[in-house]
């Protein structure tokens, strides 16, 4: 599809630039985290993923977001089918069924489910023209999202499943959810959360939460990651131990140091200054994304931008809080920086959709 030249002028280059800088910092940190160990050459793969991500971004800006939201239901059916396929026929990797293998490429449909959920939420809520919304008004979209949450939680991948909630709440809130309804939703979440704790959580998941509350319970088991990550972060100090010089990262005390805990490596080697700089970049990305929602041409666009931003923001905040030992360890990658194809492509697609909304704020 040919792209209108005028649209390119409206691309938010600051946003794109910030994302690319974050990706570059990610690659550099991956090099530091893996140069001494087995994962040699991962940074090259990550660069490939980033390039693919940029292509995906370019493709996603060419399609008018309204064409996408209009087809959200179809995409939703596809993604539900993919998730069911993964659960039933997907390969079992480290005790979980999260992957679809396509030849040499493997990807997690749950990453794309986050985008589909955002499209669907934007469309459904934009069509409801009421001033304010009650609980009854959000039951429909709530159920559709809940289906995704349950399918992903069953893989099991609680972290990604949780990522569905912030976009839902953000859009519902923007669409005029009444305070009373917010209270009811909070109550329901607590109630179902309790039920889930009782019946749905696997023992290893419960243990993770127990040891989060008291890591000394099992310092070499589930509490190990949290303790070691905190040590890495804390020992980084103000200015860090220097690139490729963090003892926690280099000697292998940090688990998953090039994926979920990559921020921990950054914090150890670059210190508080590095942490502040990178968090500043993320803040920039999120702020610009929400600005897009403010200037969007229509409710669908505003909701879509807000939903995607909420999803990204949740992932960033949760991952960084996890690295600091503030929240239980969940397998949640840091957008742009963590190693992994699905995560990188998701990050760029997400930003692509936001750019899409911004570019077309004046178009008809």
């Amino acid at each position, binding site marked *: 599809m040919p792209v209108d030249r005028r649209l390119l002028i409206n691309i938010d280059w600051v946003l794109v630039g910030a994302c690319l800088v974050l990706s570059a910092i990610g690659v550099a940190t991956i090099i530091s985290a893996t140069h001494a160990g087995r994962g040699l050459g991962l940074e090259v793969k990550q660069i490939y993923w980033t390039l693919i991500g940029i292509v995906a971004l370019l493709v996603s800006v060419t399609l008018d977001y309204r064409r996408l939201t209009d087809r959200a239901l179809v995409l939703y059916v596809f993604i539900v089918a993919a998730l069911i396929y993964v659960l039933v026929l997907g390969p079992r990797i480290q005790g979980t069924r999260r992957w679809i293998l396509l030849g040499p490429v493997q990807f997690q449909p749950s990453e794309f489910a986050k985008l589909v959920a955002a499209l669907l939420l934007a469309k459904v809520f934009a069509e409801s023209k009421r001033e304010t919304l009650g609980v009854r008004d959000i039951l429909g979209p709530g159920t559709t999202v809940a289906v995704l949450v349950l399918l992903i939680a069953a893989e099991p991948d609680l972290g990604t499943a949780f990522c569905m909630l912030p976009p839902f709440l953000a859009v519902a809130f*923007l669409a005029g959810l009444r305070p009373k309804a917010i209270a009811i939703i909070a109550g329901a979440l607590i109630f179902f959360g309790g039920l889930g704790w009782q019946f749905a959580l696997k023992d290893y998941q419960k243990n993770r939460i127990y040891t989060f509350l008291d890591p000394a319970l099992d310092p070499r088991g589930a509490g190990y990651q949290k303790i070691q990550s905190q040590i890495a972060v804390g020992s980084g100090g103000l200015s860090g131990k220097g690139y490729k010089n963090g*003892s926690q990262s280099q*000697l292998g005390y940090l688990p998953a140091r090039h994926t979920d805990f990559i921020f921990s490596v950054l914090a150890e080697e670059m210190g508080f200054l590095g942490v502040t700089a990178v968090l500043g970049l993320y*803040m920039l990305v999120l702020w610009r994304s929400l600005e897009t929602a403010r200037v969007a041409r229509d409710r669908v666009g*505003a909701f879509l931008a807000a939903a995607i931003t909420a999803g990204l923001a949740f992932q960033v905040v949760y991952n960084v809080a996890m690295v600091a030992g503030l929240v239980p360890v969940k397998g949640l990658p840091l957008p742009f920086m963590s190693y992994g194809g699905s995560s990188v492509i998701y990050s760029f697609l997400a930003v692509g959709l936001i750019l899409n909304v911004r570019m077309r704020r004046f178009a008809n």
Partner: protein
Amino acid sequence: MRIYEDLRGLQGRLAIIQWVMVGLMGLLVVNFWQLQVLRGKYYRNLAENNRIRPVPIPAPRGLLFDRNGRVLVDNRPSFNVVLTTEQTDDLDWSVKRLSGLLQIAPAAIRDKLSQKKGPQFRAVVVKPDASEQDVATIEARRLEQPEASVDPVPLRSYPLGQGAAHVLGRVGEITERQLESEAYAGIEAGVTVGHAGVEAEHNRLLMGKDGLRRVVVNSRGVEVAEAERQPPVEGPSVSLTLDTKLQQALEEAMAGRPGSAVAIDPRNGEILAMLSLPSYDPNEFAKGIEPAAWTELSKDPLTPLMNRVIQGQYSPGSSFKILMSLAALQEGVITPQTTFNCPGYLNIYNTTFRCHKVEGHGTLDLRHAIALSCNVYFYNVGVRLGIERIARYARLLGFSRPSGVDLPSETSGLMPDPDWKRKVYKDKWYPSETVSISIGQGGVLATPLQMARVAAAVANGGRLVKPHLIKAVAGVPVPEPPAVDLGFHSSVIEGVKAGMIAVVAEGTGRRAQLNGITVAGKTGSAQVVTHARLEQDRKAHALQPHGWFICFAPAEKPTIAMAVLVEHGTAGGQSAAPVAGQVLSRYFGVPLAIPPAPAPEQDTPLPSPLSPRAAH
């Protein structure tokens, strides 16, 4: 014309979301400030503790030499195969594989792992003192099985083996009891310490000071670099007073019979040789004794782990007559010329006390009474002295208390007296008991070392020496502990000495006679059961009395004093005296006067058929 939706209502809510996000980010930054800047030092310490692990370098224990510079205890290089359980993901696989490589049952390995003590990453010894082949096998598999490794350790070795096990002692991992005791304060679990003999008594001295390596390790505990090294300080070499040749002569002369023997220098109390049988091989302990072998040793009714020289308490029998003679002469109740008539028995206090010679010795003086070990003579002496004076002299000569030798767990023996009887039996002392005591029966108990001290006191003119084993530490002589002058008149000593010379020259101890060297001695037989019980079963070995011989030589200018005890050896003149003779013959390099002929003399005492306590 463009139609814009009215999004003004959204702006407020979007702003709320925007500021919530800023707030969350701000909280994160504040938290990182706390974590990294305010508590940075704390976490840097934790990271260092992660990264740096102290690894002790065991200091080689000090070597032990004999008085002539011969090696008594050595350290030889050896290799332990060790397993670090934290370095394997699949312990079962590791154990199975090691068991195959080393030919040890998996259960045995698991047993050792389950006894693991000490901090994380402390390796467990799976096979001590591994063979060269084992070492090569493990080293070759370093990459596929990094959790198994070879640890070079200095291994204590005892060239004399069983021959000097009790005096030198043994080493092994520190026990729970030692960990709690004062003497071992500051020593960590898993460390090798001395367990008996000189090794235990002088453990602190011999241990030296362990070194320390501070190594950089990765998360699997694998060493990647060394940050710092403090070399260990080896324990000092210690010269003992022992004489290897004499020790070996003693071992040969005892010929494996249960019993014990000790030789000291009467001039200064240096212990020249010390043997206790049955014995054990301390080399087995050095590399970590197998539980089964340990159980066998500790449950053996013949108590091979006990050092009989300082822990065996025997009734001294007729060798006690030396002490009686010293006391009687010093107190003036007899002179060397005093005679008594021995008709073969003494009737006194309504009891008949027998001599071992049924037809009697006739009239004899002190010299002959000692030489022939006449019981009746000493019954009379005992009656004249009374129990209080006998007990006083016994204590003076070192009975009832440890000699203070530098060895652990010495016992004190027992010298009964009226006070003791009142306390222990709540009963008064009967005069007939004094009669039994006079010939070394009736509850008197002494260790062979205590008896050797008595012989040495006669030999050196009446001084009580303190037996000791350390001659020099790192080449610096250790001052000798002073001997105590007991205040005996020289005539007293000469009188007793004359009797002891006669014992060997013409009396019960002739089988200790040497050509060219005058030996002075005294035989003894310590009854194990009552005479009546022995009559029922003359041949039962376990009922035979223990044979004693105490002696010194050369009589004119003594350089060695000995006590020999052969358990169930019957008469001391037959069992113990030949041992002493053989040893002295080797020591002085002169032949025995009477080679291997059986001596006709018997000195088995035939005391009252009633026990002292029941006597009236």
